């Protein structure tokens, strides 16, 4: 049986803490919706109770037959519609603002799998079901799933995004109040779905600096470099001269020309796809079927490490901050690559 009522009520919470820059504006809309709903509910309840009582059945009092009223029908269609337009516009505006993270956002990687959240930081440290962020700093989460659909949710920040297997999802927030807040998976993902939850710790700058001691196994990019060598990637993707496969230096977040004439941006999603399914989008001038498929060979966390390595080969320059303005990088091969895939590049394990 539950603990005594007083104990229960001591814990009783009615409204969540608001600990991110997004939370306040969303709460404002929420309160607007509550007030509109409360007014509408009171009006309708009052009318129902009033009419039911005032016109209750009495002997010798007859109902007055009324056809209807076009004026009334129009009024009570248009006024609620206009109020709803406000909600629509307001909700869409906040949603738009939440779409694109600021350029200076700190990047953290989250992998959902049955049944835990694995968090990786650029410095190479990682943790499970816990996320540490500094106060006042925009943080962008790049999220992947190893298996089924999960959904990453921090109620105190009013943020949530599904983590769908097969591609990257992202969300971002700026925490505003140091403290511990719960995080959850809010998409049912199987047996231990309930335990796929943990804590976000928002730390002030000094505490964050103390906490972020750095990974003992090197930064995320260094971990990626190790994988790059262990898996034989470096035999074909030479770093400074043309091998059988494209040079990866300077490629990150740049447009790339494909062999079917399309141009894509070599962002996280493209690099992930090119590792797991290299033949999906082959760079112009290179042969398909040279690189083996790494799907099922590398975990999402390893892919994230590899991407961090590729990213580290393209140090941010003023030009790369502006995105869309550059011409496609045409990575010309020195000679036609041999058709046969070398055995050496088969993934280990």
């Amino acid at each position: 049986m539950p603990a005594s009522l007083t104990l229960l009520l001591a814990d009783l919470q009615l409204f969540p803490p608001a600990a991110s820059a997004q939370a306040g504006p969303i709460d404002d809309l929420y309160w607007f919706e509550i007030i509109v709903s409360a007014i509408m509910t009171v009006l309708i309840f009052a009318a129902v109770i009033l009419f039911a009582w005032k016109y209750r059945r009495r002997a010798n009092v007859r109902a007055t037959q009324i056809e209807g009223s076009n004026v009334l029908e129009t009024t009570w269609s248009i006024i609620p519609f206009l109020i709803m337009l406000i909600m629509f516009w307001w909700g869409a505006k906040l949603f738009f603002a939440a779409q694109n993270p600021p350029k200076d956002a700190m990047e953290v990687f989250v992998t959902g799998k049955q049944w835990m959240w694995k968090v990786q930081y650029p410095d190479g440290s990682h943790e499970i079901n816990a996320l540490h962020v500094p106060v006042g700093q925009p943080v962008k989460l790049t999220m992947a799933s190893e298996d089924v659909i999960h959904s990453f949710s921090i109620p105190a920040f009013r943020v949530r995004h599904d983590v769908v297997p097969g591609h990257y999802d992202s969300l971002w927030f700026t925490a505003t109040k140091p403290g511990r807040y719960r995080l959850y998976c809010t998409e049912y993902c199987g047996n231990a779905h309930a335990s796929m939850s943990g804590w976000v710790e928002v730390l002030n700058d000094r505490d964050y600096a103390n906490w972020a001691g750095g990974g003992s196994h090197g930064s995320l990019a260094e971990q990626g470099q190790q994988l790059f060598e262990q898996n034989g990637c470096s035999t074909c993707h030479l770093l400074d001269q043309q091998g059988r496969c494209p040079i990866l230096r300077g490629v990150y977040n740049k447009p790339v020309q494909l062999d079917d004439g399309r141009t894509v941006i070599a962002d996280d999603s493209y690099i992930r796809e090119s590792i797991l399914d290299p033949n999906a989008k082959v760079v112009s001038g290179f042969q398909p079927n040279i690189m083996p498929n790494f799907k099922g060979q590398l975990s999402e966390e390893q892919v994230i490490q590899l991407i961090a390595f590729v990213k580290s080969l393209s140090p941010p320059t003023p030009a790369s901050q502006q995105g869309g303005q550059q011409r496609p990088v045409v990575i010309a091969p020195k000679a036609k690559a041999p058709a046969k895939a070398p055995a050496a590049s088969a993934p280990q394990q």
Partner: protein
Amino acid sequence: MATIAHGTPEIAAEEVNYLNVEHGWKSWLFTTDHKRIAFLYLISITAMFFVGGTMAVLFRINLLEPEGIFSSETYNRLFSMHGIVMVFFFLVPSIPATLANFLIPIMIGAKDLAFPRINLLSWYLYVFGAIFTIYAVARGGVDTGWTFYAPYSSTYSNSYVLSAVMGVFVAGFSSILTGLNFIVTVHKMRAPGMTWSRLPLFVWSNYATGLLQVLGTPVLAISLTLIAFERVAHVGIFDPNIGGDPILFQHLFWFYSHPAVYIMILPGMGVISEIVACFSRKRVFGYNFVAFSSMAIAVLSFFVWGHHMFVTGEAMYTSVAFSFLSFMVAVPSAIKVFNWTATMYKGSVSFDTPMLYAFGFIGLFTIGGLTGLFLAALATDVATHGTYFIVAHFHYVMVGGMVMAFLGGLHYWWPKITGRLYPEAWAKFAALIIFIGFNLTFFPQFILGYLGMPRRIHAYPPEFQALNVLSTAGASILGIGYLIPMIYFAWSIRKGPKAPANPWGATGLEWEIQSPPTTYNFDETPIVTKEAYDYGPLEEVVG
């Protein structure tokens, strides 16, 4: 009131009616009488309602303790089967297959539905579907939730997904056939003089529902078939590991399942229109608007499915469009609520049990509808998606709305269906208990939702316990509330006082024939000369 050519016999002893005309199980299992089939459906869906309800009581008990009482396996199976049983085997067929099946032919002056044998086939399909589903439960249950999201359902779940999917697939055809039957019947079998503008609003709303059933349900069948394909043959459709797209399933599923929400609520709106008119003794205010709004809901409901996917990474402008359309569909629902309220204005309102349920419906549907606006607005959807806020919202619409309407309609037409009266005092008491129990169960869930408590979890943080205990307390009151009508209806069938042909002094063809009706409803086809809801003073109708 419509004119019937023959004189209606008034409560003669031992009248022949559809219930006593034949006896024996064969006369029921091979019947093509829409009224007997409606009765078979009533028994079947009541059984399924108590199966689904028992599961709800069990998982609410689990939620008394933050760490849970049952294992997560058990809990996940309980909520999944609760959803599957309640949505596909109770809510979808509830009013259409019982009350509408019984009443549509009578209300339009016909002897039966257009396809009586297909009507029987639809009941058999329902029963086979239910058997598959119960079999899945008996084998150990299914743990995917009623939404069967891929790739969990198609690849990862180790439960009896195939039999449950098969059950829902088969029951879907029962729904399609019922809808088809209604559409053809309303088009082709109206009595002379029963023009479209004279149709009772209950017929209008079930006609709109029929369109949704026929156009939407095949898409559900396709989605479930694809799940089965992927599960059995590993054809890559939804699982990205074999080349599929998990979001595709959500598009397909909600393309049916959002209109299905209106399959579940439109018939209830029809019932409320009948009850409010009868117990206010007035024509429904703005008949044309109420009828038109049913059709508007039917059309718009096909264009809002994307609002289930605002946090999946759906394209931003797609989400904006679906948000806008979701607000649009709220307008015709609001029109209905305003018109029911206005109908009571200058009426002669009585407080019989069906009217109490109508009051309950208007209040709870209003709250359910308004909280839908929170979810149509993009930013607040992101904050509440996948939490108990959603659970509370759709239970306000489905249980507070549809189950209230179903019970109201059942009380209203019970004298017609069975020829017996029920104990009014008990019925009023039960209506009150259900209203209180319902609100205590589901209102705390709105608060839990904004606090962030995810739905479908068997264990939760301790700070949520107080509200969960309240909710479980409400659920036990609600459960008792549902048992009371079950008991007095069972009593009423055998022992209840005999009902007159028109105990409420209501208008409509169904009240002009004897209670219970004869097998072919009318000895001669009636000729309709007046509008629906042509209410005069009560004393002119009942002595």
